[in-house]
């Protein structure tokens, strides 16, 4: 394994930026955003340099490691703080730092009126550093540090405008839901150490060949719990919609392109565990399939542009999880969809931010309309992202999503039909709700409130959007040309990488079905929105299904009824128990002493003669006693 001494700069540079900005405080208000952007960009430059080094090496020597220091050395438990950059990590490094830098640039303009812009950039840099640690750690424990770091950064950024109580609550909700997932990851680490004796990726991979299936299944399920928390997958999905309380660049970077995909990274990174634990792998595809439909259904009913995009993110990550759960055939496609999604979804979120920027922070799509004429650049960049996400060839999403649908069918038998069918249905729903977003925002008639003056965003904002739009157009084609990405990633997946199942349908047939599904979705959306009148206030006399979808398929009601209320009842019970038993004992002792005092007090009359008489009687009794005993 090749070693390197420069990997640490990837993480150190943005971390340095965050430290400087947070320590310098208001003094750095004037130049803080530029410094943060510089550090993010320089981390991207280091990433490109590492890629060039990697390309120069032969395939089997491409992965590099760097040992920073010995972290834990207790008995048989030895963990080095080490970094690992391989073909999988480098994809993430370039996505995080590349998209991250674009979003830094965008934020300079987007946040220019916010007096806390410097703090915002400090958190962004902190996020970049944590996320890089997450994907560069060479053991589950190092990954865990980054995993918690991005959770913290996400919490801080969702609640960035915490002067609004609803936003502060949203950040808390995200944090708590994430903690549940984090527990899964910590359990996975503990089980790995208890049964395999190591927590490093290479060590666990080696041990997984001989370990018991039960242990690997337990680790796999716990890793899946972790992934569902961080990636907003069923059943821990409900925080993502509320996370849209954060500033839009945050939604684009953290809640679309990078952090929420950490779960996919975790599963793909742990491929050796899931390959050896079919039960856990089956659970992964089930979670993926449920979430991709769940998110898509929520997306069809949302009028808030950011929440519609958030539901779409949930759904798209469902595709990735589905791909990752399909085993060696799907890992590379999951990562491919992750990368293309990083481009088009980040681009669309920035587009949504641009629309909000021009519309006085209005987020209700029923109050948009006809913005095509006023924001041509936003319209074009958003439109390219739209074409990519619904999967129109030759845009990026077509390649990556099509491959996942195809792989789902190839799982074979009833499982293949169910998964493939779910993925196809998801594609149709995606086409429907994204067309709805597009029509409501850009192409339908004006439904603005008065005193709205929509205008195009400044250069610093549309430049990142344009770059991401170019990525949305080209990446799918580039990744699939000659199976470039698949061949690039295969060494990471060990000897299993070359397996290919039998085809249930020919690839061209799957593409045909997917395109038909997309066409149906688009057609319904056009008929329903483009060619009919749209109310500027959401109609209330709607079917029960619409109502449920508007309430996020009752996810919050469910959580409240099943977890929150019983939890509160349990807490109330424990408080009551504490008050009656523990406090009762303490107070009882006090009351007993008080009562005894009150009773005994009555013997203290204050009359000296009665005391004297008592002393006398006592003395006589004592002497009499002694006399009786000694007689």
């Amino acid at each position, binding site marked *: 394994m090749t070693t390197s001494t420069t990997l640490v700069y990837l993480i150190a540079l943005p971390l340095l930026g965050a430290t400087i900005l947070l320590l310098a405080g208001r003094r750095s208000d004037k130049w803080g955003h530029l410094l943060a952007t510089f550090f993010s960009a320089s981390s991207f430059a280091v990433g490109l340099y590492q890629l060039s080094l990697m390309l120069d090496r032969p395939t089997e020597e491409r992965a590099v490691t760097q040992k920073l220091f010995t972290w834990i050395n207790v008995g048989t438990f030895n963990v080095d703080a080490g970094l690992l950059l391989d073909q999988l990590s480098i994809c993430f490094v370039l996505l995080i730092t590349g998209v991250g830098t674009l979003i830094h640039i965008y934020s300079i303009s987007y946040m220019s009126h916010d007096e806390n812009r410097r703090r915002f950039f400090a958190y962004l840099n902190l996020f970049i550093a944590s996320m890089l640690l997450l994907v560069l750690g060479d053991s589950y424990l190092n990954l865990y540090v980054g995993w918690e770091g991005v959770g913290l950064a996400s919490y801080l950024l969702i609640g960035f405008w915490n002067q609004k109580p609803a936003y502060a609550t949203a950040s808390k909700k995200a944090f708590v839901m994430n903690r549940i997932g984090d527990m899964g990851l910590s359990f996975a680490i503990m089980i790995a150490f208890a049964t395999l004796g190591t927590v490093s990726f290479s060590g666990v991979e080696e041990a997984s060949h001989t370990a018991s299936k039960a242990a690997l299944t337990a680790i796999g399920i716990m890793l899946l719990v972790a992934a569902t928390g961080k990636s907003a997958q069923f059943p821990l999905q409900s925080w993502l919609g509320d996370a849209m309380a954060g500033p839009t660049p945050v939604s684009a970077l953290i809640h679309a392109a990078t952090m929420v995909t950490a779960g996919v990274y975790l599963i793909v990174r742990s491929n050796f565990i899931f390959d050896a634990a079919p039960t856990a792998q089956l659970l992964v595809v089930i979670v993926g399939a449920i979430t991709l439909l769940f998110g898509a259904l929520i997306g069809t009913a949302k009028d808030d542009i950011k929440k519609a995009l958030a539901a779409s993110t949930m759904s798209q990550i469902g595709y990735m999880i589905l791909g990752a759960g399909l085993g060696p055939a799907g890992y590379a496609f999951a990562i491919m969809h992750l990368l293309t999604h990083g481009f088009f979804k980040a681009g669309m979120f920035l587009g949504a931010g641009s629309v909000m920027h021009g519309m006085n922070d209005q987020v209700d799509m029923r109050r948009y309309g006809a913005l095509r004429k006023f924001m041509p650049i936003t319209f074009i960049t958003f439109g390219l992202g739209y074409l990519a996400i619904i999967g129109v060839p030759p845009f990026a999403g077509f390649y990556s999503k099509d491959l996942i649908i195809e792989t789902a069918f190839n799982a074979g038998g009833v499982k293949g039909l169910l998964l493939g069918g779910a993925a196809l249905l998801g594609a149709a729903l995606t086409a429907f709700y994204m067309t709805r977003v597009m029509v409501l925002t850009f192409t339908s008639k004006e439904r603005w409130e008065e005193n709205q003056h929509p205008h195009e965003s400044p250069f610093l904002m549309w430049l990142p959007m344009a770059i991401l739009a170019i990525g949305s157009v080209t990446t799918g084609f580039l990744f699939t040309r000659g199976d470039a990405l698949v061949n690039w990633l295969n060494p990471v997946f060990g000897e299993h990488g070359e397996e290919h199942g039998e085809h249930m349908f020919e690839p061209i047939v799957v593409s045909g079905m997917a395109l038909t599904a997309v066409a149906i979705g688009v057609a319904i959306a056009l008929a329903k929105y483009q060619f009919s009148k749209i109310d500027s206030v959401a109609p209330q006399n709607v079917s029960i299904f619409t109502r449920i979808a508007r309430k996020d398929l009752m996810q919050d009601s469910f959580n409240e009824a099943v977890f929150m209320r019983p939890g509160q009842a349990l807490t109330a019970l424990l408080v009551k128990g504490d008050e009656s038993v523990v406090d009762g004992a303490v107070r009882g002792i006090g009351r007993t002493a008080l009562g005894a005092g009150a009773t005994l007090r009555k013997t*203290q009359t204050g009359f*000296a*003669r009665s005391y004297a008489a008592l002393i006398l009687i006592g003395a006589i009794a004592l002497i009499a006693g002694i006399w009786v005993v000694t007689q």
Partner: protein
Amino acid sequence: MNPYNYLYLSALLFTIGAVGVVVRRNAIVVFMCVELMLNAANLTLVTFSRINGTLDGQVMAFFTMVVAACEVVVGLAIIVAIYRSRRSASVDDASLLKR
């Protein structure tokens, strides 16, 4: 003379003193009864000293006298102070401590 008679006398004196302390209200009388009890005890000590032919009891008696003298000084001072403040030497009147 039978030295045990002194013991009977001292028991009698002690009882008179004890009854006086419990029964009488006047602080001066109570005080004198306490002195009577102390001296009854002294008499007992001296008697035992005589019976046993040792000096221990007589030494103890001297200690008792010194302590009694000190006690008189403090006790009388308190009685005088109480009398000055409340124009009464009754021990039952001075029962305010518990409040």
